[in-house]
C-alpha cells in the first residue's frame, strides 16, 4: 500500500466507501454471494467482519447501561431535597466548550481513520494525538466543573437529583478517560508494530467507541444540560 501524504485524498475516500464485504447488500448483487460476509451460504465471516460485528454488539450493551443512568436521572431530576436544581448548577459556556471539544475530537478521530485507510502512519498518529488532546481537554473541563461544584457544597451526597447528575455525567467522563488510555496504547501499537491486520481491527473498534461516546454526550448535553437550564 502506497504512502499518501494527505489522508483525505480521493483515493483514500474511495477506499473507505467501497466496502469489500458489501455489508447490507442482502441480495448479494449480480456477483452472487460474497465470501467472508458471514451470510448463510458462504461460511464463517472474515475476521474483520467478526471483530467489528462483535464490537457493535458491545456498544449496544454499553448504550443500554447508559440508558439506565438516563432513566434514573429522569426519575430523580425533581428530587432535589431542598438542594440546588439543574438550572442552578449548569454553566452553559463551559458545557458549550466541552461539547465543542468532544465533537471536534470525533471529527479528528474520523480523519485518523481515513489516514489509516491510506496507510499513512504519520497522519494517523497526528490525528489520534489531536483526538486524545481534545478528549483530555474535555475530561479536564468536566473535572474542573465537578471540583468547583464540590467547592460550593454541591456533591452527590446532597440529594437524589445530584446523585443521578454526577452518576450519569461521571460515567460518561469515566468512559472518555478509559477510551483515552486505550487511545494511548493504540498509538504505541501503531508506532511500534505498524498497520498489522489485528491493529487495524482494533483501530476500527476504537473509532466506533469514540463516536459512540460522542453520541451519548449529545444525549447528556440535551437532556441534562439544555433541558436542565430551560426547566
Amino acid at each position, binding site marked *: 500500500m502506497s504512502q499518501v501524504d494527505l489522508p483525505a485524498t480521493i483515493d483514500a475516500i474511495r477506499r473507505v466507501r467501497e466496502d469489500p464485504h458489501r455489508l447490507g447488500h442482502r441480495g448479494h448483487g449480480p456477483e452472487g454471494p460474497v465470501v467472508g460476509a458471514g451470510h*448463510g451460504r458462504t461460511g*464463517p465471516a472474515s475476521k474483520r467482519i*467478526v471483530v467489528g460485528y*462483535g464490537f457493535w454488539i458491545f456498544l449496544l*450493551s454499553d448504550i443500554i447501561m447508559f440508558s439506565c*443512568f438516563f432513566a*434514573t436521572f429522569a426519575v430523580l431530576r425533581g*428530587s432535589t431535597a431542598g438542594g440546588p436544581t439543574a438550572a442552578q448548577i449548569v454553566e452553559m459556556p463551559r458545557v458549550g466548550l466541552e461539547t465543542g471539544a468532544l465533537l471536534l475530537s470525533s471529527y479528528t478521530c474520523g480523519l485518523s481513520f481515513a489516514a489509516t485507510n491510506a496507510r499513512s502512519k504519520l497522519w494517523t498518529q497526528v490525528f489520534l494525538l489531536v483526538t486524545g488532546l481534545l478528549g483530555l481537554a474535555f475530561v479536564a473541563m468536566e473535572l474542573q466543573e465537578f471540583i468547583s461544584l464540590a467547592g460550593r457544597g454541591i456533591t452527590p451526597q446532597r440529594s437524589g437529583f445530584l446523585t443521578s447528575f454526577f452518576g450519569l455525567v461521571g460515567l460518561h467522563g469515566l468512559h472518555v478517560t478509559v477510551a483515552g488510555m486505550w487511545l494511548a496504547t493504540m498509538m504505541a501499537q501503531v508506532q511500534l508494530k505498524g498497520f498489522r491486520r489485528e491493529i487495524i481491527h482494533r483501530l476500527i473498534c476504537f473509532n466506533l467507541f469514540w463516536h459512540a461516546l460522542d453520541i451519548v454526550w449529545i444525549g447528556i448535553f440535551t437532556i441534562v444540560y439544555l433541558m436542565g437550564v430551560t426547566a
Partner: protein
Amino acid sequence: MFGRLSWSAIPFDQPIALITSLVLIVVILGVLGLVTARGWWPYLWREWITTVDHKRIGIMYCLLGVVMLIRGFADAIMMRSQQAIAINAPGYLTPEHYNQIFSAHGTIMIFFAAMPLVIGFMNFVTPLQLGVRDVAFPTLNSVSFWLTASGALLVNVSLFIGEFARTGWLPYPPLSETAYSPGVGVDYYLWAVQISGIGTLMTGINFVTTVLKMRCPGMSYFRMPMFCWTTLASSLIIVAVFPILTATLAMLSLDRFFGFHYFTNTAGGNPMMFMNLIWAWGHPEVYILVLPAFGIFSEIFSTFSGKPLFGYRSMVAATLFICVVSMMTWLHHFFTMGSGPAVNTAFGISTSVIAVGTGVKIYNWIFTMYGGRVRLGVPMLWSLGFIFTFVIGGMTGVLLAVPPADFLVHNSMFLVAHFHNVIVGGVVFALFAGLDYWFPKAFGFRLHEGWGKAAFWFAFFGFWITFTPLYILGMEGMTRRLQHVNVEAWRPMLDLSLLGVGVLVVGVICQVIMLLVSIIKRDELRDTTGDPWDGRSLEWATPSPAPFFNFAVMPNVEGEEAYWGIKLRAIESQQLSPEPDYQPIEMPVNSPVGFYTAFFASVTGFALIWQIWWLAGLGLAAAFAGFVVFAWRDVSEFHVPVEEVARVDRARRAAREALLERLAQQGALP
C-alpha cells in the same frame, strides 16, 4: 492498611460456618496437594487453565455449575430442616445465619449453578452444531469463564472471611443500604455478582456474534438446529439486560461506598427504582436460563422420537416471541407496589401472553413424539418429566399473573413453590437431560443407564414431595423466608417437604454413583462411532470425544437437519462420501489472559469489599498492564498440520465404514 478487615471477620463463634469452611479448606488443600504431588500442574495449565477451546471451556463451566449446585443444595437442606424443626422453637440456625443461607441459596443457584451450566452447554454444543471450529472470540470466552469462577470464589470466601448478604438473592433497598446492612455481606454479593455478570455479558456478545456470523457453508438461519436458535435468543437477552444489572449494582455500590442517594429513603432517593431496574434484568434472566433449556429438550425430543422437530418454524417464532416479550413483564414481581389498576393490568396481560409462546413449544414437543419411534432413554425421561412439571409450574405462574390473585399469595410459599416448579422442572431437568445426552460427545463414553433412570425417578418424586406441600402452605398464608413459625398446623406439610428433600438427596447420590460407575465401566460404555443416539445435527458427525479442531473439513450443509442428510446419503449409497482434500487448519493459541484477569478481578473485588483501597488500585493497575501485554502478543494462531488432520479424520471414517458394514450385514440397509 487492611481497611475493614481484621481477625474478627473470621466466624469463630459460629460452629456451622467455621466447620464447613475448615472442611472446604482441607478439601481444597488436599486437591491442590494431590495435583502437585502427581505433577499435574503443567498438564492442567496447558490443557485446561489456559485453553481457549470452546468444548473445554464448556466442560469447565459445567463442572463449576455442578459444584455450586451441590453447595446451593446444601443450603436448601439446611433451610427445609430448619423450618421443619423451628415450629414454636428456635431451631438450630440463628436468624442472622438463616438469612444468609436463603440469600446465598438463591444467589448461588441462579448466578453460579444455573448460569454456568446453561452457558457451559451453549459453549460446548453451539459451535459443533453450527459446523465451525470455535466461537467468534475464543480468548474472550476464556476470560468470561474465569470471571464467572472468580465471582463464585468470592461467594465462597464470604463463608470463612466475613459474612454473606442477609437481604435475599436480590438485595432490596433500603434494607441493603449501609444504614440497615452495615457489614460486608451486601458488598460480597455486589462484587461477586458484578464480576461474574461482566463475564456473562461478554459471553452474550460472543454468542450473538458466533451464531450470526460464524456458520459453516450452507448453514442458513432456517437450517440451524433449535438449540442454536435458543442460544441466539438467550444471548440477545443477555446483551440487552445484563448491562441493566451492571448499572443497578453499580448504583447500589455508590450508595453504599460514597453515600449517594439512588435508592435511599432519604434525601430524594427512590427505593422502588431499584425494584424496577433489578427486575428489568431479573425477569428476562429466567428466560436466559430457560430458553437454552427449551433448546436442549427440542434436540432430545426430535432425536429420541426419530423424527424432525414438529413445527420447526413456529418453534423459532415462539422462541423469538419469548425473547422480546420477556422484557415487557418485569412489573409482575411487584404488583403490590401500588402502580394502579391500569399498569398492573397491562403487565398481567403481558405475563399471561408470554405463556402462549411456551404453549406453542409444549404442543410442538408432544407432536414431535406423535407417530415417532420413541426411545425412553435417560434424556427422554427427564424431558417427559419436564413437560409434566413445567406445565403445572407454568399454570401456577399464570395464576400469579392475575393481580388480584397475586395480592393474596404475594411473597408466600406459593410463590416459592411456583418458581422452583419452573426453574427446577424447566432448567435443572434440562441440564441433567443435556448432561446425559452430550456426555459421550465430551468424554467418549455414555453414562450408565440404570443409575441414570434411578436418579431421574428419585429427583422427579423428590421434587414433587418437596414442593407440593409448599403450594398448600402458601395458600394457608405462610410467607417466605421465615426463620421460625408458630403455627402448629403447618407441621405435617413442613415435615412432608423435608421428606421430599430426603428423596432428592437419594437422587443426588444416584447421580454421583452413575458418574462413578460410568467411569469404571467406561470401556463397555465406549461410543466408537461418535453418534450414540442416532442424532440429527452436526455435533454427531464428529468422533467422540470431538477433536480440538471439531471438523477436519468444514461441513457443507445442503438442507435442514444437516447430519441426518449426510447419514441418509451414506446409507442409501452404502458408502461414505469420497475422502476430502485435507488442508492445514488455523486455530487460536492458548492464552493465560483469562486466568490472569480473573486473578486480579478477585483481588480487586476482595479489596473493594473490605475497602482496602491501595490493593484495589493495585489490582486495577495490574489489569491495565495485562491488557497492554495481551495487546502486544505477536502470535495469535497456529496451524494444525495436514497429516494430523488427515490422521484424525481417517480414523473417524474407518469407524463409520465399520458401522455401515455392520448395518449391511444385519440387513438394515436398503
